[in-house]
């Protein structure tokens, strides 16, 4: 789903007439990473793995056998020492786990300071093969996507090991974190990330469990406006946060809908993507703008779910001492 959104932004350039939104779209991809990382402060009391120096691999147990998201079986005899991640949510996870020093390359969409000094391999979907070859890699983390089977084949032909991940929904992200932790020998760090996320999700679920579900829509922008349908990551978050996506009958993941359709469905809350204003005809409905980071699945999903839940059920979240 993350990939869907960021590529959608790029593809949207050709469909949206409003160039301002297009520019914003490009910057959004950067935003998500920054926001997600910022939002992902470890809560006090959790184990914090070292970010510099060698990672804590005391929890490592090799050989590790895994099946990746494309169905390929992998056996890791040791932690890979030179890796590139083409999938930003995986990159995020790796950074959080403290194994950033294993990364020897980045994509154009990874603009965080820690990775700035690394050579870029281009886009995540069609990376520059020459640079990949020259980096002498132990592992490439790639999308398990329909559109990029060709890249997988070429990587195989060039003898570069690759592990496929599917970063589309909440469960996917959790799986990625778990798998990457095992591969990199940083299971402890991974597990603590997972328990933190699960903790937040459980807390949110508990708070909104008995409450009636407000009718919510998430608008990405454009004219006519594009909304998120069922099966998208944002839809998952909205559901976890105790809301009901009014467009849960949408066919494709994201689609433009007419103003009439928006007006016809009673709305309790309009969630808007970053930089947008609510449509004038719906000015009477409560609305809120979310940072672009919430659209993209990543380790920051716990925080994202909580932020959305606060908007949907403000009363359920009394300020707590932190």
């Amino acid at each position: 789903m993350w990939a869907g959104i960021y590529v959608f932004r790029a593809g949207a350039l050709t469909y949206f007439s409003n160039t301002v939104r297009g520019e914003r779209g490009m910057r959004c991809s950067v935003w998500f990473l920054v926001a997600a990382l910022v939002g992902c402060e470890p809560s006090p009391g959790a184990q914090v793995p070292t970010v510099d120096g060698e990672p804590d691999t005391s929890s490592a147990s090799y050989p590790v056998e895994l099946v990746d998201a494309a169905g390929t079986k992998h056996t890791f005899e040791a932690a890979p020492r030179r890796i590139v991640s083409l999938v930003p949510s995986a990159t995020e996870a790796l950074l959080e786990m403290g194994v950033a020093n294993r990364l020897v390359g980045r994509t154009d969409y990874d603009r965080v300071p820690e990775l700035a000094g690394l050579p870029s391999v281009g886009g995540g979907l069609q990376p520059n093969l020459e640079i990949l070859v020259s980096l002498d890699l132990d592992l490439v983390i790639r999308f398990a996507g329909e559109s990029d089977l060709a890249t997988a084949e070429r990587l195989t032909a060039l003898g570069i090991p690759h592990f496929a991940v599917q970063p589309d929904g909440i469960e996917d992200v959790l799986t990625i974190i778990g798998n990457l932790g095992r591969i990199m020998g940083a299971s402890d760090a991974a597990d603590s990330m997972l328990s933190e996320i699960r903790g937040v999700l459980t807390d949110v679920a508990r708070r909104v469990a008995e409450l009636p579900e407000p009718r919510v829509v998430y608008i990405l922008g454009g004219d006519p406006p594009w909304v998120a349908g069922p099966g998208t990551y944002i839809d998952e978050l909205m559901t976890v946060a105790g809301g009901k996506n009014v467009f849960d009958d949408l066919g494709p993941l994201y689609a433009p809908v007419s103003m009439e359709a928006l007006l016809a469905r009673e709305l309790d809350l309009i969630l808007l993507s970053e930089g947008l204003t609510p449509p004038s005809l719906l000015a009477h409905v409560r609305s809120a703008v979310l940072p672009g980071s919430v659209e993209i699945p990543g380790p920051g999903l716990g925080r994202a779910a909580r932020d959305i839940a606060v908007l949907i059920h403000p009363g359920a979240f009394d300020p707590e001492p932190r």
Partner: protein
Amino acid sequence: MKPVTWAVLLGFIVVLVFLLSLGLGSVDLTIGEVYAALRGGGDLSDRQIVVDLRAPRAVMAILVGGGLSIAGAVFQALLRNPLAEPYILGISGGAATGAVIALALGLAASFSWALPAAAFAGALFAIVLVLRVAATADGGVDVRVLLLAGVVVGAYFTACMAFVLSISDARTVRTLVLWMMGSLAGSDWRTVGMVTLYTIPASLALVGLARPLNLLAIGEETAGFLGADVERVKRIAYVLASLLAAAGVAATGVIGFVGLIVPHAVRLMVGSDYRVLLPLSFLTGAVLLTVADIVARTALSPAEVPIGVITTLVGVPLFLLLLRRSVGAGTGIGAGTGSGA
């Protein structure tokens, strides 16, 4: 300058540009490293870059650039229209529709060759459809109908493609949009082999048709009076040129403008004799596309600029320059029309 001189010069330039293409790219390699890689020695990653990544791309650029140029020249003779180019008869629309259907159905997930195969099938479908519409009762081809049918069929397919896109997910959209702008990135030796299989025989056969194609430029009736089997020549030329364009599109996406300007540029150099025009167009197109590919790979490295963008951005000013210089000499593009009444 005599045609043979041009041919030798261009051949030399092709080789030069090919070698350049091996040496330039996202990763800097010295001439020594390239040479070592070609001989089987040197660093493994250097070898992989030169032999597995850059060499097939360069060969593909030569094949597709040459093929599109020949196809463009042939369509210009067939349709008697200097604005004709390989995609004018709906081939790119058909190919794009085939590609997007393969993407939307998720076929590309199961077979990596599903996309090129579907694109080729779509192109073939467009070719056959247009041919049937333009076929005359006695098995010939009415070129006025051909042009109109091609444009209309192309528009129809483009609309089909847009419809499928409008109900597809974002990843499909982006993949198709990039594909439509053309790229040689997917070139490996296997695809190069398949494209060679189409391109070389078709190009040779079309060069063999050079004389009757020359006659077509004067007029179909006159060509018939001079002894050419006009209908047969038109049909064969149409099919072969379309296959050349379809093979190119299937392998690399839509690379526009090459098939239009290269024949004209060559015409400005050596005149309209197709016995000379076709081979020189092949060589010139090969050079153009190889250079364009080098620029596409290096200009914004590590990202790749779609090659169709390069061919147009570079090709148009060059062409305008050539055009201006020729207008005065009375050898310009429009200079041939309307005379002989």
